[in-house]
């Protein structure tokens, strides 16, 4: 059974002190996590005591100002970052869409990028070949599929990434803000796709500033502020 449980998860970024000529005083910021110093290093507390539970069929919308920790939380869920504290338990095959420059090769064609993406998610060449036409159809990229990825617009890249990730049927899908880049007709299709995925007892976590999108797609809403959970409804 697909599920996600986070218990008191925190994450700290450690930055190496860089030599600077001027040392401006600290200003309190309404954005971002909390900046602190530990020894010679600066640290940013990006997540602080985050706990929640998701079960099959849940669609969670992550909201909060820039720097609230949304991307960081998604990366912790995906397993890119090991949390500095707390525990996570996840059951289900996870896939994630972060941004266009991540996990795609600009020089390679869209078609080739689909193959690479599939291989990275652990699919065999045959399985990818089988899904190829479906992915291309869903993305509506047509002949652009054989052009290098760097020739795509943001929205086109979003279509391809979304089509590839969802056709390969993850049980848990994590999506960062940029997925909103697609146009209205694509958003509509994407919404249907996400409904299907959730019906198949999957879990979706979507970070966005677009309240309407969250309203349309999600069943739960988690508000983050400075790395802490402000509300969960």
């Amino acid at each position, binding site marked *: 059974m697909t599920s996600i449980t986070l218990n008191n998860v925190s994450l700290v970024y450690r930055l190496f002190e860089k030599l600077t000529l001027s040392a401006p005083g600290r200003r309190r910021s309404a954005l971002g996590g909390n900046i602190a110093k530990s020894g010679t290093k600066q640290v940013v507390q990006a997540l602080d005591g985050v706990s929640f539970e998701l079960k099959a069929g849940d669609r969670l919308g992550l909201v909060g100002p820039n720097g609230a920790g949304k991307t960081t939380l998604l*990366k912790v869920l995906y397993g*890119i*970052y090991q949390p500095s504290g707390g525990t996570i338990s996840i059951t289900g095959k996870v896939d994630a869409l972060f941004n266009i420059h*991540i996990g795609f090769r600009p*020089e*390679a064609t869209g078609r080739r990028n689909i193959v*690479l993406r599939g*291989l*990275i998610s652990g699919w065999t*060449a045959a399985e990818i070949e089988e899904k190829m036409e479906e992915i291309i159809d869903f993305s509506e990229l047509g002949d652009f599929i054989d052009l290098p990825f760097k020739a795509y617009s943001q929205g086109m890249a979003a279509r391809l990434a979304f089509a590839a990730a969802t056709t390969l049927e993850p049980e848990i899908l994590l999506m960062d803000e940029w997925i909103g880049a697609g146009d209205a007709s694509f958003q509509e299709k994407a919404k249907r796709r996400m409904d299907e995925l959730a019906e198949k007892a999957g879990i979706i976590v979507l970070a966005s500033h677009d309240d309407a999108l969250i309203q349309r797609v999600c069943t739960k809403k988690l508000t983050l502020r400075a790395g802490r959970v402000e509300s969960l409804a």
Partner: protein
Amino acid sequence: MAAKDNAPEQRIAILPAMIAALNGAFDDISKAMRLHRVWIALAHEDIGDQHRRTTLGPLWMLVNYFAFVGTFAFVFVTKDASNPSYIAYVAIGMLVWFYLTETITMSVSLFQREASFIQGTTLPLFVYVMRLTMQCIIRAGYSLAGCVLILLLGGYGINTNWLLSLVGLLLLILATPAFVVVFAFLGAFFPDSEFIVGNLMRVGMFFTPVFWVYSGQEGIQEYAYNWNPFTYFLEGVREPITTGIFPGHALAVTGYFCLGLWAIALLLLGLYRKRIVFLI
């Protein structure tokens, strides 16, 4: 007093930590091996990129190689170049040296170059290590073809000595992933090392018997010959062909060096692989 009491416990605690690190490293490696399709595909992409951007593509490796071997063979014409065995000496020396230099200098910036994949996917780090290893081997294949051509033209017919040389090549290939891991971590922890290592490798050619022949001179050359691990990598491949002797000593030194290097590589991978994403 208290510190003294703690000492044995600390020593005991190190062992489980080492074992945990090694387990982590083997886990990373075995996952990467299951994903072999990924690094093979990515290495092909790398070679393909070079083809797309330039007319000759990886063939530039071959041109570069011929240029170097040719230059050294003719600059040192007064001394040895009339002697075909010197040309073979330089040809094999350059082949191995180019391979090592390329591998090491590219390793230092490996994690930096792979930042987008490391920050966006959960692939084991060893996938990137194998990708670079594979890419370096493919590229060296072009120089190898050039080297074989030079040897054949120089009158070194294919014989059983070439088989002995293969042992040295095999050790070199086995050592490659360990070289990559060690220098990639070095580059991630100390970004400055990219420039230091780059310069050292450039200078290193003059402190390694790539084009000069060691015949018992004293002083710097003696140290450079005996205390330089690269010497043994070179001689392990070269001696069988130029002298026809089985390079037992060179292979033994290379073998021990590989073991040491792999031990360091496994520890680094085991202890720090989860930290890399925060460092790039």
